[in-house]
């Protein structure tokens, strides 16, 4: 799942970065700090093996800045007001999006689960999170089949929505039933504390990320 030559960050580091990005989005740091934070995250993304994505994020950031400083001031008022809110919010949430994507792409589900477990999140919440994440790709697969079937049946317009939802729900019910039967026969209800083959350890890279994040957050808080 991971390219061997790439940096690999702990899911807990990812979660912390996500929290800090959220805090930063609310504090609204000064421009140099904001720029620094975005560049730091893009660098991290690139080091984790998503070079292309990092470049794309930087382009998006540049584009929003252009929009805010050059294009919108010169456009008609109606468009300017509407778009500036949009641009402003996108810019604020950008760092969260970068960390979010990095985690989705680079953190295996089970590491996330182990991470949450070491932080003593309630088991119920962990199961809910893992089942939800597990189900998204399954829905995508199913939707593909149903779309094909609709094309062959000549179903158009509003009918499509109903035609998609009904089979999806029916398959979800049977999947849920079968999945839980398989789960209980593999001892998911065992009250013994669960163990894991994956052992998570925060390494130098993780600490660097966390310390950098804390520094940025503190600096933004003090300067705002």
């Amino acid at each position, binding site marked *: 799942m991971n390219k061997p030559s790439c940096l690999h960050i702990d899911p807990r580091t990812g979660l912390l970065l996500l929290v800090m990005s959220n805090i930063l989005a609310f504090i609204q740091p000064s421009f140099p700090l904001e720029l620094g934070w975005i560049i730091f995250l893009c660098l991290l993304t690139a080091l984790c093996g998503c070079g292309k994505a990092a470049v794309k994020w930087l382009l998006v950031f540049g584009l929003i800045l252009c929009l805010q400083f050059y294009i919108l001031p010169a456009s008609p008022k109606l468009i300017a007001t509407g778009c500036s809110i949009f641009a402003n919010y996108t810019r604020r949430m950008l760092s969260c999006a970068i960390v979010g994507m990095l985690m989705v792409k680079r953190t295996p*589900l*089970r590491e996330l689960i182990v991470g949450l477990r070491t932080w003593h999140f309630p088991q119920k919440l962990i199961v809910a999170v*893992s*089942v939800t994440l597990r189900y998204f790709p399954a829905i995508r*697969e199913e939707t593909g*089949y149903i779309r094909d079937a609709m094309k062959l*049946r000549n179903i158009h317009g509003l009918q499509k929505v109903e035609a998609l939802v009904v089979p999806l729900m029916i398959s979800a019910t049977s999947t849920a039933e079968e*999945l839980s039967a398989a789960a209980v026969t593999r001892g998911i209800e065992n009250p013994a*504390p669960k163990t894991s083959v994956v052992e998570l350890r925060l390494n130098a890279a993780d600490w660097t990320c966390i310390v950098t994040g804390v520094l940025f957050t503190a600096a933004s808080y003090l300067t705002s």
Partner: protein
Amino acid sequence: MISIENVSFGYSGEKGTLRDITLRIKDGECVLLCGESGCGKTTVTKLINGLIPHFTDGCSLAGKVSAEGLPVDETELYELAKRVGSVFQNPKSQFFNLDSDSELAFGLENQGADPAFIRTRLKETIQNLQLTSLQGRNIFSMSGGEKQLLAFASVYTMNPAVFVLDEPTANLDEDAVTRLGEQIRLLKRQGHTVIIAEHRLWFLSGLIDRAVFLKDGKIARSFTGAQFFSLPERERIGMGLRALTPSSGSLPSALPCGTAEGLSVEGLTCGFGREEPVFRSLSFSAVTGEVLAVCGKNGVGKTTLTRCLCGLTRERAGAVRLSGKLFNRKQRTRAAFCVMQDVNHQLFSDSVMGECLLADPDCTNARAEDVLNLFGLLLFRDKHPMALSGGQKQRLAVATAVLSGKELLIFDEPTSGLDYAHMMEVSSIIRKLAKEGRIVLIVTHDRELIHCACDRVLEL
């Protein structure tokens, strides 16, 4: 040792799913449960792995079941799980993780086993079952056969004394079935007890010690392995069982392209994005009145060919003609229909009749009734499609295709998990469609079906 004593069972509101079953299975024995669909063989497996009564609400159960010395009804499922492992029919719905490594470790992690022990056990599993190709894979990139192999392996890591397999081959191709057979052989060598409920039988020859034949919820007959596999053909068919030997004999191969009446595929190349094409310059004909089987291992492009013929994917090169006329992608979507393996995906209305009207808004009641009658569905005209049985749903999907005037019908694995009688039913419908002048293709691994329903074979 597993003992089932005088057990009668009914799901909620029903009675007589099982009637007075008594069965003792010795340690290390390999037992086949066979019989027609609905005979109760899956229910017997549930008695052993504890899904009955722990996972079945409102059922009625009389009699005693014990597995490995544990009374099943009084033992928690997670305790039972350590001694009885289960593999189910549907490879899609047996996974909780998104990657194969996590899945293999799942059972032991649930038990709270020591991580170092889990690691050694994982190594053993991968070595014993030769699973190197399945390591570190995303579940959604795996074929049905690979998924089923993984499901088997993740039970194997838990090392239960008893393995309960409920129609494990329903979605597998011939290679994967053979491989499963080898794995069962390994289990036997290692002294595990194996209970397998199955329709496909040929791969179990030489593996099973005993065969138990169920009929209407009762144990009707019991055989030793050798007796069972030497049952005369007529008796086997009378019992409604699938073939005991792999089907042999071959059909003529598909006609070359260029037919004037029917489907002619000329130099077809298909692929995704910038990747290598899935198949290249494929040419063949399928004439009206004949049924063409499309075979080949998983991954050779059967699905891609089907989707391309139905106009769901674009071809890179080549032409598809119907009755000599060139059909582009959009035209093919209108002229072709695919009966999918999971037919639940293609029924959309809230009644059988509604399904017909959806297929052809201008269709008169009389015409719809005619077609429904042809497929034995007229009695169910007001029922909800999802309340039909699997076979009825399949026939309803075919009926909609007939109503919308589709010329080319493609069946994708129409007999996975079907018993002899249902396979023959599907086969007779396919024959009927061909006789009425439609072009019929069957994409399948099922050699037995090919031999009774097809005229020619296209090996991809």
